């Protein structure tokens, strides 16, 4: 049962989420009360105020909701993408679409999540679904 609760191994939801990514698992929460998927990880459901939040693995499929290309000098790595992605389970997250030039990221583009190292932490990034497939 402990594996089903929002806290695990003495850690709160935020740490549980990041530990999951570090171990290669992308898991988010769902409210046992109202059924809404919840992101980012929390202690209470922001939809109904319920305290019962279980972890589950989303499909990783999503759609770009909003996007911007951030201008950066070539010597610092060049332009990069920052976007908001809506997962098919109904939650939104900030991320980056990679494996495609930033100016080719479009609102409505179907994307697939994968885990990538950003600095020293595992995080979710996305790739266009056709590339990922």
């Amino acid at each position, binding site marked *: 049962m402990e594996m089903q609760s929002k806290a695990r191994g003495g850690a709160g939801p935020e740490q549980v989420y990041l530990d999951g990514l570090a171990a290669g698992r992308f898991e988010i929460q769902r409210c046992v009360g109202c059924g809404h998927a919840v992101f980012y990880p929390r202690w209470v459901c922001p939809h109904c105020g319920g305290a019962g939040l279980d972890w589950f693995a989303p499909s990783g499929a999503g759609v770009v909701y909003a996007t911007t290309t*951030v201008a950066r000098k070539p010597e610092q790595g060049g332009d990069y993408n920052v976007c908001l992605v809506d997962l098919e389970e109904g939650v939104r997250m900030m991320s980056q679409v990679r494996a495609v030039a930033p100016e080719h990221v479009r609102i409505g583009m179907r994307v697939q999540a994968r885990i990538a190292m950003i600095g020293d932490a595992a995080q979710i990034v996305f790739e266009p679904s056709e590339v990922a497939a």
Partner: protein
Amino acid sequence: MSLRDLRGRAAIVGVGQAGLGQAQGYTEQEVLTQAAMAAIADAGLSLKDIDGITTCSSLSPMWGMSVVEYLGIRPTFLDSTMIGGSSYVAHLLPAMHALESGQCNAVLVCYGSTQRTAKFNRADLTRVRKFLDPQPFETPYDPPMPAAAYALAASRHMHQYGTTRKQLSEVAVAARKWAQLNPEATMRDALSLEDVANARRVCDPFTVRDCCMVSDGAGAFVMTRADRARDCAKAPVYVLGNATAVWNRQVSSMHDLTVTAALESGRRCYEMAGVGAKDMDLAMLYDAFTINTILFLEDLGFCEKGEGGAFVDDGAIAPGGRLAVNTNGGGLSCVHPGMYGVFLMVEAVRQLRGECGERQLNSPSLALVHGNGGTLSSQSTAILGTRDAL
């Protein structure tokens, strides 16, 4: 008692600004004090009359205490609510409650920043804030905040409603045209639609000319109960309504990037004031980025959702246009020292008093002031009016 009972019960009786642009060699406390003393003198009061204060800072979480100590006052009312740039609009209603209850008699609302010239500057603050105030579900993706959040909103608005690059530029050009009529504005050089679109890219669709400036500056105003305001030095400007709404902190937590909590703050403010968008002679809308003006024109009912781009087209909010918006030149061209809310208030008061020289509107009686904070996170709307509007 309802909020309607507070309509017009308090007034702004003095305003002041200091250090706009660059205040080299001065501290935040020093420019704040200059603006505060200007506002107190403008009201015909003295520092010892001030028994209420609201202030907050981007740098210091205990800023209220520092200001109280520096000024040597012993206030019976202190509010340091910090919700970003809208704070100095959001301080109105708590101050009105405190004045109405008799908790205090004269409230000084004051802000100062030297983020442009200080040794610890805006860039340092952005770097340090990643540690002091982490946003663990956004920061890893390195969004240049706050610009990236507003750029995401602009991308969505353009996608959903067909808002154009040119319409964003119209907002910047209109602000600049007003600034050219304001001797206190920081940026007054000619600016064309092409200049905006072709300026240095920041994050698409924004160029640097879609973004408010990084400047120094301080602003302040003084509030009293309406009965006492009549004895002050200048014509009182009455606070007819104020409401604040917060729905989120991070842009990634917004339900719809094209709809802000201004929808709610505006509705509640109009309800308190008993007037609507159509009644306004002036709209002071917090233009941290060009998309802001478009979003707030929509959310505050000056046009339908999605029609903000068309509303601002062809110089419609520039001098001589259909609606006077940001007549000081706005955060885009007048001043933007980190948090800009207090300067919206100062300009609205000056317009309603008829003190704006070349940019003065023709006998305005009602002004809407709208503050925004964070990354489209906090929204506070106020309606100010002359005696005729009571």
